[in-house]
């Protein structure tokens, strides 16, 4: 069995968890085993049907009042209990903020290794092999985990969704959460203004660099973003370090690594640490006045020109398309 942890926020399943489940099902089929899913929380049993439509033969539901709100320790304890009972070959997570917080805690609790933020999983003779970017994508590491179960987190936006009908038998499990004196509790979630999607989750990232010249001009990128569904505004380190936009938008080696379907770079020259963070994008488009900017070496489509001249007609063309 490959067990996939399904992350929910406000009682909704995260898309990246469905990506992880889709990949778990593909690998389970290759290994001749089944894919199961686990939901943790309260009032979430109704989500099981969605998981069966992505190939989960069984959906385990760990419900308990104390699991209503995410807590690393309680969730890790609950999952460890289930894993010890089921003995799956592997446990998949999506490498989201929660996945990166929870998967290592679970792995340490089980005393096993963790393959984090993988971009490829292959089933070979010796079991699963994992490939993950290191140095923010300047190199790729391929390895096996020698301990069992294999705990794995998968990078969001990389693995394709694959709907597939499966039984989706719902199994409720009661879990005992050991009381601990050392606590870490989420007491509040502070939404960012506008409910923007994160650059790591967006299908399209529209980024600005030093060529944006000032914080006010990032409004131009937000206007483009408003015309494109599931897009988010990103930035280079120099734009962030100049204080033009918050660091949570930064793409690159000291920011976020993104793999959107489209990466649009405006006024970004393409420093090596920036390229590391966005080179796994499916399509890259760059607009820059400098024809020698390194960004053009990685761009599928480049526009040499002044971004302030290009953006207004670009917006008009996008509006026409939306019609």
């Amino acid at each position: 069995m490959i067990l996939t942890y399904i992350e929910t926020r406000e009682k909704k399943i995260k898309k990246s968890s469905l990506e992880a489940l889709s990949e778990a099902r593909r690998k389970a089929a290759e290994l001749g085993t089944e894919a199961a899913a686990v939901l943790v929380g309260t009032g979430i049993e109704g989500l099981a049907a969605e998981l069966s439509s992505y190939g989960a033969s069984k959906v385990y539901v760990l419900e308990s009042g104390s699991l209503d709100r995410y807590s690393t320790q309680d969730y890790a304890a609950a999952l460890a209990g289930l894993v010890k009972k089921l003995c799956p070959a592997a446990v998949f997570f999506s490498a989201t903020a929660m996945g990166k917080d929870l998967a290592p805690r679970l792995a340490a609790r089980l005393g096993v290794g963790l393959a984090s933020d993988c971009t490829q999983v292959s089933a070979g003779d010796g079991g699963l092999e994992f490939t993950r970017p290191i140095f923010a994508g300047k190199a790729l590491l391929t390895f096996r985990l020698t301990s069992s179960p294999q705990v794995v987190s998968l990078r969001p936006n990389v693995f394709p969704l694959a709907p597939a009908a499966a039984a989706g038998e719902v199994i409720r499990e009661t879990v005992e959460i050991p009381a601990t004196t050392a606590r870490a509790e989420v007491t509040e979630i502070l939404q960012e203004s506008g409910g923007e999607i994160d650059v790591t989750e967006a299908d399209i990232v529209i980024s600005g660099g030093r060529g944006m010249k000032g914080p006010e001009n990032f409004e131009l990128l937000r206007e483009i973003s408003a015309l494109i569904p599931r897009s988010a505004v990103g930035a280079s380190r120099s734009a962030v370090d100049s204080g033009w936009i918050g660091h949570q938008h930064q793409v690159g080696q000291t920011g976020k690594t993104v793999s959107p379907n489209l990466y649009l770079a405006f006024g970004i020259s393409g420093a090596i640490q920036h390229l590391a963070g966005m080179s796994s994008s499916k399509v890259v488009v760059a607009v820059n006045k400098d024809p020698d900017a390194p960004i053009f070496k990685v761009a599928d489509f480049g526009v040499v020109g002044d971004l302030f001249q290009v953006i207004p007609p670009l917006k008009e063309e996008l509006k026409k398309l939306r019609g």
Partner: protein
Amino acid sequence: MDILVLVKRVPDTESKIRINRETNSVVEEGLNFILSPYDEYAMEEALRIKGAKGGKVVAVTVGRDESLVILRKCLAMGADEAVLIKDPLPETYDGLRTARIIARFVQAKYPDARLLLFGKQSVGADNSQVPAMVAELLGIGQANVVVKLEVEGETATALREIEGAQEKVFLTLPAVVSAQKGLNEPRYETLKGIMMAKKKEIPIVSIEELGFKPDELAPQLAIIKMDQPPARQAGRVVTGVAEETARQLVEYLHTEAKII
């Protein structure tokens, strides 16, 4: 309040990474090594907490003798002590192994530390594993990817970054906190600090001293290969009147790439 800051030596972010295919490792020759950028935020936060609440800041790394340089930087920034846990193995990319070494070290040498600060990930291995694993092995709470931290007596409140929002986490101490960019603005070392750091002795703790048996630290992952990522090819470049290039761009995205 004693604060441990766990740091790592990494190649600077402008480095080009070359690979030795025989050993499946990064070629270190010619690389400029630095204190991992996120660790600088952790160091700075420790120094600020010490400034406000008193106590001692200890910088700790797991590595070879080459890592003494980053410990000297931590001392120059203002750490009171620094310790090198000498690991005979080069990079294993195995977070659990490093976490076990650190957890054992904390229990043996600094059982009274109230706060363990890390960078949210090392720039390089990019694992984001060790802080949470150390917290689990020590049975204490954690807050990762933290952009604000307030310590009050035996508790702390951290703001941690999640997708499109922040989680407020209430912690009882001792606890593990990993730092994200935005937590603070790290200070530069002063000349005086650098001079003082040179004179300080850095104790070295061996793996054997921590009581590990030979097999106990066998890596949990077996490296098959290390590769360069596939190189991207430069595509078409257009130039000319803005209206025309904008039209060509949207046409490309719509009809050729079929994204919009």
